[in-house]
Structure formats: structure tokens, C-alpha cells
């Protein structure tokens, strides 16, 4: 129900200010972008990614934040691997 899925805006529909075509892994659907608009900081344009819920774009995906989160997770993974290595290098095991 609260299912939301990220999709890329590939086209703003001409003559319909609130409609855009969104593509998700090759699947396309017209989505209402009225809750985001096309101007201003929250507004969307072609190439933006949005979260789609029941046919509406609810939120613009912040790609910098996404990258930061992933980087953080990656860092944890590397730190974890380092620790494991350190552990493996120690004499305890």
C-alpha cells in the first residue's frame, strides 16, 4: 500500500503540466507530478528520479544523499573487512 518505487522521468507530457512519463527498468507509465511541480527546488525535470506511489510522484530522489548513504555503507563494509583482516592477522584465532 505504501509501496513506492524509484523511476526516472523520461518525458514531461506536452500539454499536461502535471503528467510525466516515468521509466522503471524499461517499464513506462504516465505519472502525476503535480505534487512536485516542475519549477523551484522541489520541481522535477527530465532525468530526475522520483518516488512513484499509486501513480503519483511523491518525492524527488536526492542522488547526492543516495550516494552518501551508499558510501557510508561501503565504508562500514570496508572498515568491517579491515577489522576482519586485523582479527585474522592477530594471534587470537
Amino acid at each position, binding site marked *: 500500500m505504501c509501496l513506492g518505487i524509484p523511476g526516472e522521468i523520461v518525458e514531461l507530457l506536452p500539454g499536461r503540466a502535471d503528467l510525466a512519463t516515468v521509466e522503471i527498468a524499461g517499464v513506462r507509465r504516465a505519472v502525476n507530478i503535480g505534487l512536485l511541480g516542475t519549477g523551484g527546488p*522541489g520541481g522535477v525535470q527530465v532525468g530526475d528520479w522520483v518516488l512513484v*506511489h499509486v501513480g503519483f510522484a*511523491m518525492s524527488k530522489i536526492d542522488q547526492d544523499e543516495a550516494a552518501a548513504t551508499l558510501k557510508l555503507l561501503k565504508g562500514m563494509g570496508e572498515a568491517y573487512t579491515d577489522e576482519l583482516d586485523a582479527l585474522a592477522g592477530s594471534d587470537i584465532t
Partner: protein
Amino acid sequence: MRFIDEYRDADRARALAARIAALCEPGRHYKFMEVCGGHTHTIYKHGLEDYLPESVQLVHGPGCPVCVIPMGRVDDAIAIARHPDVILTSFGDMMRVPGSHGSFLDAKAAGADIRMVYSPLDALKLARRNPDRRVVFMAVGFETTAPSTAVTVLRAAAEGVRNFSVFCNHVTIIPAIKAILDSPDLRLDGFLGPGHVSTVIGCRPYEFIARDYGRPLVVAGFEPLDVLQAVHMLLVQLAEGRAEVDNQYTRVVPWNGNPRALQAINQVMELRPHFEWRGLGFISHSALRLRDAYADFDAERIFQVPGVRVADPKSCQCGEVLKGVLRPWECKVFGTACTPENPIGTCMVSSEGACAAYYNFGRFTRRRTKEATHA
């Protein structure tokens, strides 16, 4: 798929799991509630508990919009659908929710014209295409979904579509969380905040939880790494003795939510004085109805629904499950009399319902499944 697959990576999960394990104080038990059914779904669908130590328990909350619809509202909707000129539309999840005399699917089999739609806009389109029928949209959902209903009503009004109306069952998340916090029988260490509700309402509305109840809340995304990371963030707060509202899901959730969406809701809807939640009883100011200005689109007024309160089946313990007091399998009828194919309670219907998610995906303990699959 972009913004999905990256957050399902097993290697990163293992690293996070190690961090989580490391953060847990020996002998201490952690109980976190994932408020949102979407999280419940993720947890079981991806077998996320395999990554959590035994001492971390995820408790399922009331955030499954289908699960909280009381029987009486299902009966009311079916009463509307029985008008020969009505097409009742609804999201697929609603189709099997039991009313006191059967579900939408049963009503459909008995002759009502009830159809699934993907979007409320599809219901409006149906109304345009069937001018001789009255199309009613059964609106359910939290703040995530309410704006789409509001925009649809605004569209219908702007276009003058006279045969479209909404049976409004939108609920709001904050009063539900408050009801949980106020319930005496549950001890929680923190909350996973509902990611998609928060795209609309933002993170501020949760601040009272940290401030007044001293519990941390982390707004979390819906991929399994999101949930794991949010658990990690909760544990960090606890380890550091903090209780704050934090946002794991920054790529999607702005701290202030979506002002246009809030505005749409506010334009079309207003809070009800009170609303019955399945298993939780009446909660004041916990649901939305259409404003008088949109009375022409309000199925509740057009059809003068009976609005009878129907008691839940005696054997149903959905209320306890929704409050997190009982784990799904602790309900007496779980998996025997109540199964996804023959649900007694709502939690066994929606894939976001705790019972259904646990039954469908999680039915085996971590230990047993680990034996089976890692052997």
C-alpha cells in the same frame, strides 16, 4: 534497478550485521517497532532477521493501512457497491479484507461491480468512461496516499465529473503511534519511522516521541539495507544514550516533507473527530474525511452509509498484533483457522500485514531456516 539493487547487497548487509551485533550490549534485549507495514514486508520478504542477533527484536506496528480498516467500513463499502449503478474501485489489497459478511471478492462474486485500480486517477478515468454509472473510490492509506486522493478529487471538481466520489478511509500515523506509546502493555526501545509517510509529513511530527517519551525514531527506507542501517542508527543512539528523530532515508525524505502534498490534503480533507481502527478502537483525530466544500464527491454523504459498528470476531487478535503486544504467531488462530487463503483478521490479508508477512515469508525461525539453507 537503480536505487533498489544497491540497497539489497548481501556483502554490505554482512558488514552492517557485524556492526549491529557489536553494538548490542550482552544480556540486553532490544525491541524496536517498525511502524510501517512496508517495513514488515521488507523484513520477511528479504529474510532480514537472519542478519539480526537474537537480542534485537523487531515488533510490527499499526502502519498497514488495510489492516486497520474496521469490519464496519468494509460492510459500508459493500453496501455502496450493491447499488446497481455503482462501480466500486479499490486497491488490490482491499479485495480480500473480510467484512462481517465476506470480502469485496465475495461481494463481487455475488454480483457487485468492484474493480481494482492502480491509482485513484484510474478510478476517475473509469468515471469519465462510464457516464451512466457512479464510480466510487474506496480510499485507504496513510498520509502517503491521502494526497493522491485529494488531487483526484480536485481534478474531478475541476473537470465537473459528477459521477465520481470517494469513500474516504484515510488515516493519520501520529495518533496511532501515540496510542501505542500510551498503551501500558508494551515496552519499546525505539521506532523505525515510516519512510513513505514521511515524504509527505516530513520528520518533525515525530519529535514528540523523542521529547515526550524518550524514545529514538529513525525514518527508514524500504530496502533491506535501509532497515538494517536504521536499526544500526537506533542502536547507536541507545548506546550513546540519545533519543532523537533521525533520518536514514535522506535520499527520499526531506526533513520538512512535501508541502504541496500537505496542502492538497488540507484543501480537500479535514480531521474527523474520531475514527475506529481495527483492533485499536476509536482514536480521536486519527482519520480524514472530505470537507463540506467537496460534499458532492463524498460517498459517505451521497450513499448515506449505515455506519454500523461491527465487533471483530472473537478469535481475532489483530488489535494485539497491531499494537505489537503479540507477535503474529502468538495469535491463537494464526496459521490454522486464520491463513492468507482464509483470513479471519485483516493482518493476514495485505502483504504488509504482520500476520500475512510472517506467514508468507517468515514462517520459519532463523535457526531452522539457517540449518536448511546454509547446511
